[in-house]
C-alpha cells in the first residue's frame, strides 16, 4: 500500500476551509483506487487524522502515522508545517506545504525534504500587485494599497514583499492588522473608508474572511478592487455575505468549477457510488478543487517515483527524489482529465516550488460560482527570489545546515 497520512481539519474554527479540501483529496485518491486499482498497481491508503488545525494534535498525528511507511506529509497548517520541517527532515519523510508554510522552503538547497509547490505567499503578493498594475494601466505610481491581514506569522508573510514592491512601483502601502479570530473589524474597515485605498489585499483566515468581505460590502468598497489570497477565496468566505460579495476577487493556482473530465468521473465513480469522504456537497468548490489538485500532483509524483525506483511500493526517500525532478506537463494534465486545470509543473533540486504562477478568480454571487479571470501570471522574481535566498540562508545558518550544491 501507499500510505499517505492526511492531517485534515474537519472540526474546529477552520473546519469550513478544511472540509472541502479533505473531501477533494480523498475523493481523487478513491477514484484512483476504484478506477485504476491504485497507482502502479499499489492501492493508495489515505490515513485521515484530525488535527482541528491544532499544532499539538498535528504532532500526535505525525508521530502516530509516521511509523507505517508514511510517504509524505501535507501538514495543512502553517504551525504544523514549521513544527514538522525539522522533525520530518530528520526522519527522512518529505513535506509538502501546498502554497502555505515557510516560503523560503522554495530553496531546495537548504530544505532538502520540504516542498512548497506550486506557489508561495510572496509570489502571490507580487502577482496581486502585478494584476493591480495591469488594471491601472501599467502604473501604480501614487496609488494606495491596503493590506488587511491576519495578525499572525501567516498574515505577515506578504509584508516584506509588498514593502519592496511599493518602493519599486511607488505605491503607498497601508497595513491593517486584524487580530485572531477577526470577528470584529470595524476599526480596520473604517480606516479603509477614511483612507480610501485603491486596492485592498487580504491575507485572511477563517471567520476573518467572511467578516472582512461583509464589512467591505458594508462600506461599499468596490469588490473588484478587493483581492484575497488563495486562502481567502472559497465559497465559504463569500456565501455568507450574499449578494454583497459579488465581484470579489482572489488569487488561485488552479481552475474553478467542474468542467474537467476527471470531476465527472469522481462524481460518477466515487460520490454517486456512496464512496465519498464527505457528504459530496463540496464537489467543485474551490477547496475541493485544491484537494483534487494536490492529490493529482501527488499521484504523478508517486508514479514518477515508481518508475524511477522500479518498484511499486516506494519509500519516502524515493518519493522525495521523484518530487525533486517532478515534471507534470500540460499534456499530462490533459491525460489525467485535468486539461487546463493548472499550469505545468517542473521541479528541481534547487527550486522546490513550481510553476510559481497564480491567476485571479472572481465570485459571481448570482450564480454562486467562481470563475478564473486571467491567465496564470508570474511574480516579480527580481524581488521575490533575493528575499527567499536571504531567509533560507538565515535558517541554514541558525540551524547549522550546510546548503547543498545541487549540481
Amino acid at each position, binding site marked *: 500500500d501507499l500510505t499517505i497520512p492526511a492531517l485534515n481539519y474537519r472540526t474546529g474554527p477552520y473546519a469550513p476551509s478544511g472540509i472541502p479540501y479533505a473531501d477533494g483529496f480523498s475523493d481523487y485518491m478513491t477514484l484512483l483506487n476504484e478506477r485504476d486499482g491504485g497507482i502502479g498497481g499499489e492501492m493508495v491508503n489515505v490515513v485521515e*487524522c*484530525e488535527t482541528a488545525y491544532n499544532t*499539538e494534535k498535528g*504532532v*500526535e498525528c505525525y508521530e502516530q502515522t509516521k*511509523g507505517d511507511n508514511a510517504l509524505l506529509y501535507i501538514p495543512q497548517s502553517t504551525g504544523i508545517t*514549521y513544527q514538522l520541517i525539522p522533525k520530518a527532515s530528520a526522519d527522512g519523510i518529505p513535506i509538502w506545504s501546498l502554497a502555505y508554510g515557510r516560503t523560503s522552503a522554495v530553496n531546495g538547497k537548504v530544505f532538502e525534504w520540504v516542498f512548497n509547490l506550486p506557489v508561495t505567499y510572496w509570489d502571490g503578493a507580487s502577482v496581486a500587485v502585478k494584476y493591480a498594475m495591469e488594471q491601472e494601466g501599467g502604473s501604480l505610481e501614487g496609488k494606495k494599497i491596503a493590506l488587511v491581514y491576519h495578525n499572525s*506569522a501567516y498574515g505577515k508573510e506578504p509584508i516584506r514583499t509588498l514593502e519592496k514592491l511599493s518602493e519599486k512601483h511607488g505605491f503607498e502601502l497601508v497595513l491593517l492588522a486584524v*487580530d485572531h479570530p477577526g470577528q470584529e473589524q470595524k476599526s480596520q474597515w473604517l480606516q479603509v473608508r477614511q483612507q480610501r485605498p485603491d486596492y485592498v489585499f487580504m491575507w485572511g483566515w477563517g471567520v476573518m474572511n467572511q467578516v472582512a468581505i461583509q464589512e467591505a460590502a458594508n462600506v461599499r468598497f468596490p469588490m473588484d478592487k478587493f483581492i484575497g489570497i488563495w486562502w481567502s477565496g472559497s465559497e465559504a468566505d463569500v456565501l455568507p455575505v450574499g449578494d454583497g460579495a459579488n465581484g470579489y476577487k482572489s488569487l488561485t493556482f488552479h481552475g474553478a468549477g467542474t468542467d474537467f473530465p476527471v470531476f465527472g468521473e469522481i462524481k460518477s465513480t466515487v460520490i454517486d457510488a456512496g464512496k465519498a469522504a464527505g457528504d459530496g456537497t463540496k464537489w467543485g468548490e474551490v477547496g475541493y478543487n485544491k484537494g483534487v489538485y494536490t492529490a493529482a500532483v501527488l499521484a504523478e509524483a508517486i508514479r514518477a517515483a515508481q518508475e524511477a525506483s522500479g518498484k511499486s511500493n516506494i519509500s519516502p526517500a524515493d518519493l522525495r527524489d521523484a518530487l525533486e525532478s517532478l515534471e507534470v506537463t500540460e499534456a499530462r494534465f490533459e491525460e489525467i482529465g485535468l486539461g487546463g486545470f493548472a499550469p505545468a509543473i517542473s521541479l528541481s533540486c534547487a527550486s522546490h516550488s513550481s510553476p510559481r504562477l497564480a491567476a485571479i478568480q472572481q465570485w459571481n454571487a448570482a450564480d454562486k460560482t467562481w470563475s478564473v479571470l486571467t491567465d496564470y501570471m508570474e511574480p516579480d522574481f527580481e524581488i521575490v527570489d533575493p528575499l527567499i535566498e536571504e531567509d533560507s540562508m538565515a535558517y541554514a545558518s541558525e540551524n547549522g545546515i550546510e546548503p547543498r550544491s545541487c549540481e
Partner: protein
Amino acid sequence: MIYREAGDFSTTYQQDSQTFPIRFDRYRYYAILAVAFLLVPFFINDYWANAILLPFLIYAIAAIGLNILVGYCGQVSLGTGGFMAVGAYACYKLMTSFPDVNIFFHVILAGFVTAGVGVIFGLPSLRIKGFYLAVATLAAQFFLVWMFNKFGWFYNYSASGQINAPERSVFGIVVTGPNTHAWATYLFCLVFCVGAALIARNLTRGTMGRTWMAIRDMDIAAEIIGVNPLKAKMTAFAVSSFFVGVAGALFFSVYLGAVEVTEAFGIQKSFIVLFMIIIGGMGSIFGSFAGAAFIVLLPVFLKNVLVGGFGWATDVAAHLELMILGGLIITFLILEPHGLAAFWKTIKEKLRLWPFPH
C-alpha cells in the same frame, strides 16, 4: 481492608509532616519514580514521547504552577498561556544569545524571568478578586501574546515570526532540535517535572503553603491574624509563574521545537491548564498530575478507540470526543466536585472501611 493506615504511627513531627506519611503510599511512590526513571526510558518510542509523555509532563508542570496560584492561593488566573509564552520566548532569547550555556540553566532562568513578569501582572490581585481577577488576568494573556507577536526583537526578526529551537545538548546528549532521542527528551522533562513536584510539595506543606491557603480560604481573616496579603499573593504569583515559565520553555524548546505565539500560547492554553487543575483537584499536587493526564491522555485515548478501534470517520469521532470529554467532566464534578484527587481520596476511604459500608 484492602487499604490500611492503621499501624502507621509517627513518632516525630518530621515524620508526621512527610509527604506520604503512610508507608504503603510511600513505597508506591518510590516504585513509580523507579519505573519512570529506570524503566520507561528503555521502552519509550517517538510516539509515546512526543504524543503522550512530553505533553503530559510539561502540562503537569504548568498545572502544578497554576495550582499553586489558584488551588492554594485562590487567585484565579487565565493568563497561563501568556506566562508560558514568556517562558518560551525567554528561553529562546537565552538559547540564541548564550549558546554556550547549558540549556538546563536557560530553562531555569526562563522560569525566573516569568516569575518577574508574573509578579507585575499579579499586582492587581491586591484589589481585584474572584472572577473579576480571572478576567483581569486575561489582560496579561492578550497583551503578552500581542507583544511577542509585534516586536521583532523577541523572535530575532525572523521573517516568519516563528521561533525555532536550535539544537542544544545536556552532557553531550541532544535534547532540543530535530535530532533528539525520545528517551533523552523524556528524561530531561521528567527531571524538571519531578523537581517541580517536590518543590511545590515542600512549599505547600509548610509556612508558605499555609499562608497561601489562608488567603485563599478567607483573605480578610488571614490578614487579621497576621498574614501580609501583598507578600502572600506576590509570592504565589512568582512561584506559580516560575513553574509555568519552565513549562513554557520546555513546551517550546523540547516538545514542539518551533512555535508561533498566537497559535501555541493563545487563550486556549490558559483554559486548558485551568481545566486540568479543576478536574484534577485544586490544592493538590497529585491533582495536577491527574488533571494533566486526564486532559492530555483522554482525547488521545478516545481518538484511538473511536477512530482506531471502531473505525469511525475522524470528524464524527472528534465531535463525539468533545461530547464525551464534556460529559465526563460534568460526571466527575457531580460525583466529586473537588476533582480527581478528592475522588481518589474517597475511594481510599471506602477501601479502608471495606467490606463494611461505613
